[in-house]
């Protein structure tokens, strides 16, 4: 807005006569800012109204003796030694304008926007880079500080193109906001403005190297010729690259799929969670009408801090492609025919009654919420079958002990670890946010990382110990060179990939890993370093709810298969004459074999509970309406149960949750992590079978395409095509 005014002024200036020009030029900033003598130190008044820290910032004193007192605008604040002036101001409740400073990144001090006046200092100081000293008197509201900000603003806008009206950052631009709040009302720049290419302050570069761990983004050139770019026409191959969009205070780096699609003031933000992996990153879905326009991260220190993976950020276009919108029945000619819900449910109910209970099988998909999974289990149990499981959990999951399938250390707890042993897992593609934590820890403390599995790409230093279970045997027997690193570690963390669930020798591997854990003392009352990293959003809740199949060969003998969003199931062994019902939101792999399709709503359209890999239950919030004639998953099963004559005893979300409470009360503690009570090693029966010699496989082949929604996304398809090149 301001820039628009500047633009019109710039035009006006060029037209007016030189005489008037001079007159206009004379007024530069607010007149009272011209007397640049330092403000006279006003004695701190004793009865100042108390101020609250900005955004509820908390101060953590690692050592109480190190507390120092500084004065911010006359208010005394106690802060630990080593804090910067800017942090002291935040604690004192003064928000200092800044561009280049970011809490989670290293300090650059190159934007100079955070200049404040410090008593007895000849010049204003850059508060983000200046350590606070005892008794320092900081003034943030004096004419000098104001004038400094105005000056910086003018310099920044000097080389800024006049394209605010067409810039994607419009409305949520730090530069725009701060020029409104702190800038002068006019500039002294008379030359021709350049267009488009932007000047940069560099938080993105620091993000790329510090959080994402890639060196692809850099600053090219110096001074006004400085530009951000990828070195040599190269792709930024990080799974966290999208975060540079959020971090960039101006519109230099914007989301390509979102470019010119919407303005931020026409969007409705819905705070929900992500389901594309087992991390459950906190996200905000920005929607306009019935359409999801973009996905941005939300702060959650325990899970994703303030980053999200690129898959989470850009998969949303899959939500509007390939959707199932009407109930359908496959006719005799093999084509699907649209029918009403009444007819579809009647057909399914009729067929299910014709089958023997043991031939009825139900499979919940990767993206299923806890409510629909418990409904499916209750429904099939009422039909007499107990062959229900969740895909990804393998043929014989161990749901008895919660510590055997969740991340016991917790995601934020990984920061305390000083040695990692990754077994059959590539966290970079399986759970990018967990990988970011490991990367952060490795960067901060030089923690050792050992990896057992197929050759994989890591963005931090690691030792490749081996590819198969024999390496585990060596580690368990203490013969491996990496043993010393593990036993010397104070808090060793073992992370086991969920890909192992699919192996036949799963139990044997688990028991060997437990031996290793015992040997390196990874499981103690104060530290539980034995973790499982799950792959899908539904897995943890499914195991909590006890979705365990009765027989391992249920698919081979199934005559009635109920797929609740399950697309990655191998249906080759399914008998030809089996009747398949597919309930889900995307016409993906499961649909090819289906006889009846029941359209359901996606995670962005329903309220559902998901538990992430560390066992933290979170709920999604509907952001957009459902597509076509689709219904929520649990409602479909509830309706079907009534048509089939075995009505489930709940008719609302509240009632279904009280049912969940009787099975897995931890799923109702929203946003709280419920740690596992027992450690599994002592309670597990002894394993007799031997480990297979086969090396560990890759659990996620393509980071960008792991489920029905991401497979339907055009952007994800482009990403994976680019990555393969």
């Amino acid at each position, binding site marked *: 807005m301001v820039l628009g005014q500047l633009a019109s002024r710039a035009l006006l200036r060029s037209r007016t006569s030189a005489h008037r020009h001079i007159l206009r030029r004379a007024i530069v900033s607010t007149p009272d800012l011209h007397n640049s003598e330092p403000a006279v130190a006003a004695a701190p008044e004793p009865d100042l109204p108390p101020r609250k820290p900005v955004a509820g910032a908390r101060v953590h004193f690692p050592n109480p003796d190190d507390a120092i007192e500084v004065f911010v605008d006359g208010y005394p604040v106690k802060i630990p030694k080593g804090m910067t002036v800017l942090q002291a101001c935040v604690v004192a409740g003064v928000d200092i304008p800044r561009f280049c400073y970011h809490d989670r990144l290293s300090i650059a001090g190159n934007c100079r926007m955070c200049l404040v006046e410090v008593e007895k200092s000849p010049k204003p100081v850059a508060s983000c880079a200046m350590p606070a000293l005892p008794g320092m008197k900081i003034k943030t509201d004096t004419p000098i500080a104001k004038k400094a900000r105005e000056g910086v603003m003018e310099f920044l806008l000097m080389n800024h193109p006049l394209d605010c009206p067409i810039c994607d950052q419009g409305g949520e631009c730090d530069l725009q906001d701060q020029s409104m709040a702190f800038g002068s009302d006019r500039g002294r720049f008379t030359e021709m403005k350049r267009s488009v290419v932007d000047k940069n302050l560099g938080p993105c570069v620091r993000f790329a190297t510090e959080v994402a761990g890639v060196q692809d983004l850099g600053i090219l050139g110096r001074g006004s010729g400085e530009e951000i770019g990828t070195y040599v026409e190269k792709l930024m191959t990080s799974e966290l690259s999208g975060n540079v969009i959020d971090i960039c205070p101006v519109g230099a780096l914007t989301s390509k799929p979102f470019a010119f699609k919407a303005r931020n003031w026409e969007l409705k933000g819905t705070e929900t969670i992500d389901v594309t992996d087992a991390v459950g990153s906190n996200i905000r879905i920005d929607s306009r009408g019935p359409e999801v326009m973009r996905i941005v991260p939300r702060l959650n220190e325990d899970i994703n801090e303030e980053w999200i993976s690129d898959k989470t950020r850009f998969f949303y276009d899959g939500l509007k492609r390939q959707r199932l919108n009407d109930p359908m029945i496959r006719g005799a000619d093999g084509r699907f025919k649209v029918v*009403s*819900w*009444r007819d579809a449910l009647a057909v399914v109910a009729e067929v299910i009654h014709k089958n023997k209970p043991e031939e009825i099988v139900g499979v919940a998909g990767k993206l299923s919420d806890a409510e629909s999974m418990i409904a499916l289990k209750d429904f099939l149990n009422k039909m007499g079958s107990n062959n229900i499981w969740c895909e990804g959990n393998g043929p014989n999951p161990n749901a008895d002990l919660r510590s055997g399938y969740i991340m016991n250390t917790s995601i934020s707890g990984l920061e305390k670890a000083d040695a990692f042993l990754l077994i059959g897992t590539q966290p970079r593609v399986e759970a990018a946010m967990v990988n970011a934590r490991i990367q952060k820890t490795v960067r901060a403390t030089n923690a050792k990382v050992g990896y057992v599995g197929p050759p994989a790409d890591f963005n931090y230093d690691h030792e490749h110990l081996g590819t198969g279970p024999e390496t585990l045997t060596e580690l368990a027997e203490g013969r491996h060179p990496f043993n010393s690193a593990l036993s010397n570690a104070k808090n060793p963390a073992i992370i086991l990939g969920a890909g192992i669930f699919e192996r036949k020798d799963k139990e044997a591997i688990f028991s060997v890993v437990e031996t290793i854990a015992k040997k390196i003392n990874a499981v103690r009352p104060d530290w539980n370093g034995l973790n499982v990293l799950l792959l899908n959003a539904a897995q943890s809740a499914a195991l909590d709810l006890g979705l365990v199949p009765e027989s391992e060969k249920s698919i081979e003998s199934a005559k009635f298969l109920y797929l609740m969003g399950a697309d990655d199931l191998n249906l080759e062994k399914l008998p030809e004459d089996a009747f398949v019902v597919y309930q889900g939101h995307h016409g993906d792999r499961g649909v090819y074999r289906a006889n009846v399709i029941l359209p359901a*709503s996606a995670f962005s359209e329903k309220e559902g509970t998901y538990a992430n890999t560390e066992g933290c239950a979170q709920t999604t919030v509907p952001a957009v*309406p*459902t597509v076509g004639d*689709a*219904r*929520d998953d649990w*409602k479909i099963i*509830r*309706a079907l149960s*009534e*048509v089939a004559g075995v*009505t489930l005893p709940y*008719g609302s979300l509240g009632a279904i949750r009280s049912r969940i409470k009787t099975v897995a009360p931890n799923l109702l503690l929203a946003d709280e992590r419920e740690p596992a009570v027992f450690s599994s090693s002592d309670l597990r029966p002894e394993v007799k079978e031997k480990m297979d010699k086969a090396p560990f496989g890759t659990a996620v082949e393509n980071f960008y395409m792991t489920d029905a929604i991401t497979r339907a996304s055009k952007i994800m398809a482009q990403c994976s095509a680019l990555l393969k090149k």
Partner: protein
Amino acid sequence: MASTVKYVRVPPPSANIAEARKRVFEFFKTACRSIPTIMEIYTLDDVVTPTKLRSTITSEFRKNAHVTNPQVIDMLLIKGTEELSNIVEHAKQRHHIIGQYVLSREDSNQETKDEGTSDFLKSFYKGNYV
């Protein structure tokens, strides 16, 4: 055509129930005979069949089966004639016909089937947000 309808004269009142009954049958036949025209001008072929339309007309008649007063029957006949002429003259639009005589019928037909089902199932069939 519109002008002819404008000056349609209101017929003299029926003397007794038998005459009223005869007029009702006449009107029913007229209505049924206009079904092909209606199907054509509103292009209803892909949403409804003539049979279904005919049963819709029948159900409209049967709604008033209990009426015995010839004067009331005359009044209903006049209203019916007006509605029919509006339809035949294309004074209505396609969605009016579909909404009034096609879709609403389906629902009412189904609702009789739904008897004995729970409120949950009824609202489930109506939509996701009911």
